[in-house]
């Protein structure tokens, strides 16, 4: 059976990991390559690198980082942050990224999703959506969740699926950073209404949250940052627990 995926997310600034990480056996916690290798050894199924600088100067540094990760890491990885052109995606994929994730740029110019899917295939196009539930309605937010829009989460998700997205990475801003669990109701609705994989993001705090998002939330994958980086939830332990709850995982 296809397994549920566990995906650590690493924030990158000028080619270095920024959010503090607390791996005892790591020589340089700021080195994305070393961190990525460590996660691969721990049984992470994929990795996401989010470039939070995304300025023009930083872009070259990120490209170089992608190349180094691809050289040394033998599991798939996605690169996101500030991607808005076919050329940029071409460069990232040529350097060895398996997928790219686009967010605000897709909202500003939805045709970008079609262009990327046509040129590189849907399998490498992840559309990330940040949304917030306001008075019972889920509204898409831009620029790292700072700019609200009137766009409905579910309508937007369906639109990008039709345009050729291969996967949706949905971050609930109501849950992100709370460690109170994922937005399972919205996630389950996405999974029911769409026919592409859904990655849950925002709210991971304990093992039960992962169990819930894979069962109640019907998510195909779960992404988290701090609970993994600070060793609060070791991935091997998490996967063993999921297995105990009859959730298919790669052990």
């Amino acid at each position: 059976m296809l397994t549920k995926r566990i995906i650590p997310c690493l924030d990158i600034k000028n080619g270095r990991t920024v959010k503090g990480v607390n791996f005892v056996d790591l020589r340089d916690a700021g080195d994305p390559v070393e961190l990525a290798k460590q996660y691969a050894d721990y049984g992470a199924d994929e990795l996401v690198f989010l470039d939070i600088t995304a300025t023009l100067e930083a872009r070259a540094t990120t490209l170089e980082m992608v190349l180094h990760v691809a050289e040394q890491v033998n599991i798939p990885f996605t690169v996101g942050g500030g991607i808005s052109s076919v050329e940029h995606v071409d460069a990232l994929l040529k350097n060895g990224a398996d997928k790219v994730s686009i967010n605000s740029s897709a909202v500003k110019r939805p045709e970008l999703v079609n262009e990327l899917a046509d040129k590189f295939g849907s399998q490498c196009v992840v559309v990330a959506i940040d949304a917030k539930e306001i008075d019972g309605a889920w509204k898409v937010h831009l620029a790292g969740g700072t700019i609200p829009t009137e766009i409905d989460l579910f309508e937007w998700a369906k639109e990008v699926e039709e345009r050729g997205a291969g996967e949706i990475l949905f971050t609930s801003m109501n849950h992100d950073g709370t460690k109170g669990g994922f937005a399972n109701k919205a996630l389950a609705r996405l999974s029911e209404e769409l026919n592409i994989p859904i990655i849950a993001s925002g709210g991971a705090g304990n093992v039960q949250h992962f169990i819930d998002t894979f069962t109640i939330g019907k998510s195909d994958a779960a992404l988290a940052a701090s609970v993994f980086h600070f060793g609060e939830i070791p991935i091997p332990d998490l996967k063993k627990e999921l297995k105990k709850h009859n959730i298919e995982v790669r052990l």
Partner: protein
Amino acid sequence: MKLVIIDYGAGNIKSIQFAFNRLGYEAILSKNPEEIKTADKVIFPGVGEASSAMKMLKESGLDTLIPTLKQPVLGICLGMQLMCLHTEEGDTKGLGIFQTKVKRFSQNVKVPQMGWNVIKELKSDLFKGIKENEYMYLVHSYYAEHCDETIAATDYEINYASALQHENFYGTQFHPEKSGNEGAKILQNFLTL
């Protein structure tokens, strides 16, 4: 050993090249027929859409060259699918090396299948040292139908061929270059065929 990855403009071939580097081998990227013919081992990659990939193969004459190769050839993902008789993707005629057809998963499952699934019913030296039900990384919307040439099977909606072999030609639907240490073993096995 001369190891050539066919470079016809399709897909993420860097990952495959790096995977061989990690095993201590240098792989050359080439679409030069002479270079490919004289290789000890050939990798036929492919990510993207079938009809445009086939068009690129035809433009460089590789569609007629590949079926005549005598050394071990490994098609990966779309590479494997293009080695079949036909694929529903873009209604594309394949190279006809593997006697099977490629179909699209139905709407009963999420498409693409994306992630780690198991390979079983393993039948080839390509899988020496790989245990039944080992996890491999797959990303695909189309699958090769089970046939006599199936050397590994996977379940997703139905039981399909996740690896094929015909004489010196091998194909894997999964990405050994992205399937951790077990995937690396398969690449190593290919080099010793």
